[in-house]
């Protein structure tokens, strides 16, 4: 018996509006198509009609989860054009924000993955831990979602009490090692749903240009923080978790291990935060003109590489702002990972590439 099953654009399995249409023989998926573009907002178009300072605020709205990554990429590209050099303390604060954001995103993804296999208790545990990250982000930036921290030449706010953030970090680490790691790595019902499911081979991952934890779970050791360090990442000692089993479980393991590495980076950054200013002289919109030229910036977002290209024509308004988000690269893999799998596994498989369609539909 053959079915055509629409999942989305509005569906309990999806965080955001997109549509996965599955053709199933009984419970087995035989074909799949994916459609995006239900929430296009024209952010690139708007960015080319606003000045650079307005652009920072605008690109931070590309994504509600990794908002900091977008403003960071934007600022780094503009800093290349202007030659502005952020102070050392600002670079550390940028790393701290980026890693807290990674934890926030990974907790969210872990929760969603648990919910998709019907494990709502772990969903609740992940979201409880995520609240602690939000508390830390709120304590640093004053905001829970769009932090408004990055500026051209530094950051907007200093971290005045690193010890308070370290205390929150201790709690998070305890939660990760007592709840997330044992459940995702050892629980039998979780393993039965994830082991050998949604295989994306290393060759497929490379051919489709997969990025981030999805690529690393398929044995591609790729991380911009190591390959082309930005901010202060070259000052810290951390590992890039890579798994070779290429299934959903490998993605769970990579996410869980990355959380531990993020905690390690945060601990190093917070305990060695250098003294000094946290930004250079603040530019104002009226006199802030960027020299003509093109700059690119790459940042390792929680879901993979974010790429920004900014072209300036010498005015205070960019001529071209081009954004490439990780989901744009990863979503093509879904069609291949769901083929031949059980219908029950398809929501989890599509979620295992950690999709963010608000980024893609920017």
């Amino acid at each position: 018996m053959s079915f055509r099953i629409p999942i989305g654009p509005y569906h309990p399995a999806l965080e955001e509006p997109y549509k996965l249409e599955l053709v199933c023989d009984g419970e087995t998926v035989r074909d799949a198509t994916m459609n995006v573009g239900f929430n296009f907002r024209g952010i690139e178009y708007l960015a080319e009609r606003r000045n650079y300072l307005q652009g920072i605020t605008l690109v931070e709205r590309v994504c509600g989860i990794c908002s900091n990554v977008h403003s960071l990429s934007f600022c780094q590209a503009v800093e290349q054009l202007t030659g502005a050099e952020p102070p050392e303390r600002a670079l550390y604060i940028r790393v701290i924000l980026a890693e807290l954001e990674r934890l926030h995103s990974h907790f969210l993804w872990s929760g969603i993955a648990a919910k998709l296999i019907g494990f709502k208790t772990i969903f609740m545990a992940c979201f409880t831990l995520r609240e602690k990250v939000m508390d830390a982000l709120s304590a640093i930036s004053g905001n829970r979602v769009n932090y408004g921290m990055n500026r051209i030449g530094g950051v907007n706010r200093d971290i005045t009490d690193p010890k308070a953030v370290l205390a929150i970090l201790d709690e998070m680490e305890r939660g990760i090692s007592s709840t997330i790691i044992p459940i995702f790595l050892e629980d039998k019902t979780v393993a039965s749903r994830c082991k050998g499911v949604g295989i994306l081979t290393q060759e497929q991952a490379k051919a489709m240009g997969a990025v981030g934890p999805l690529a690393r779970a398929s044995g591609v050791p790729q991380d911009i923080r190591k390959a082309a360090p930005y901010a202060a990442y070259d000052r810290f000692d951390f590992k890039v978790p890579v798994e070779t089993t290429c299934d959903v479980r490998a993605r769970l393991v990579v996410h869980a291990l990355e959380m531990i590495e993020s905690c390690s980076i945060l601990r190093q950054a917070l305990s060695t935060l250098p003294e000094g200013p946290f930004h250079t002289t603040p530019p104002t919109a009226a006199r802030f003109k960027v020299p003509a030229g093109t700059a690119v910036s790459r940042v390792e977002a929680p879901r993979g590489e974010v790429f920004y290209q900014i072209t300036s024509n010498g005015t205070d308004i960019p001529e071209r702002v081009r954004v490439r988000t990780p989901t744009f690269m990863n979503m093509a893999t879904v069609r291949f990972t769901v083929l031949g799998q059980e219908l029950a596994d398809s929501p989890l498989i599509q979620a295992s590439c950690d999709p963010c369609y608000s980024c893609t539909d920017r």
Partner: protein
Amino acid sequence: MNAMALIRLFLFPGLLFAIPAGWFFVWGEHKAVARMQRRIGPPLLQPFYDFVKLLGKRTPSRHGIEADLLRLYPVLSVLSLIAALALLPVFPTGGFSGDGILFVALLEMPSICFILAGFTSGSIYGQIGSIREAVLSVASNLVFLLAIVTIAVTESTFRMTDFAGPSLNPGHWIGVLGILLCIPAKLRLNPFSTSNAEQEIYSGPLTEYAGAALGMWELAHGLEWVALTGFVATLILPVGGPWWLHAVLFVAVSFLQVLLLSGISAATARFTLQRSIQFYWRWAVVLAVLAMSSAIYMRFRL
């Protein structure tokens, strides 16, 4: 029909007891899961409020035989469960020869109605949910029936009054374990909640339901809790003693099962259909061997 039968049907453990008990058990399930997830959980009367609210909802109108059938299925489920509850030997008197078979048949009605509701609704999600429920039902019922046959063979009867109470025969306890194993599948709880897996197929067969008809399904779910946990309670509670103590123990043991099953539900992920079938068929083999060897042993002993 004698007075005792009427009391069992309308008072205890039938209509008057079972409906509030069903709401109470559903509340217990939700509260236990919430506490395990460090949430506050719903107030005691929430299932009752939900039922009343659903009764008062205006729903999109359907016409024709399909609409009548969709209204009929939940009502049929509720009525068959109340009839099943009336057969429960809470006070081990009355009953008739073979009432155990009727009890099993009545317990199966909600599942059949659930499957039919999905197919009748015309929804793709309902149809997939119905297929899943049908397949899981076949797998779990194999264990359920073998468990009851094992008990029946050890007691040499299908009369429920004779089942009641604990037994020294290990076959009785293996049967009770088998029934307990099947309850999560019959109640569509984790890890066997495949037929109403909201992340995959919304509410499965109930996707197209709303208002009073959905309220009746919710009520049927509560009654399923009472009937299934009550059945296990009658199998393990000692017979005799004052009637009020027996009634209190019946509720307490049933509620303990609610807490136990809710705990398992909260601590597990959902199995896929294939894995659920594998789980039950493994147990079916074990129980089939035990039931058969128990039957042969009893035959030689007699």
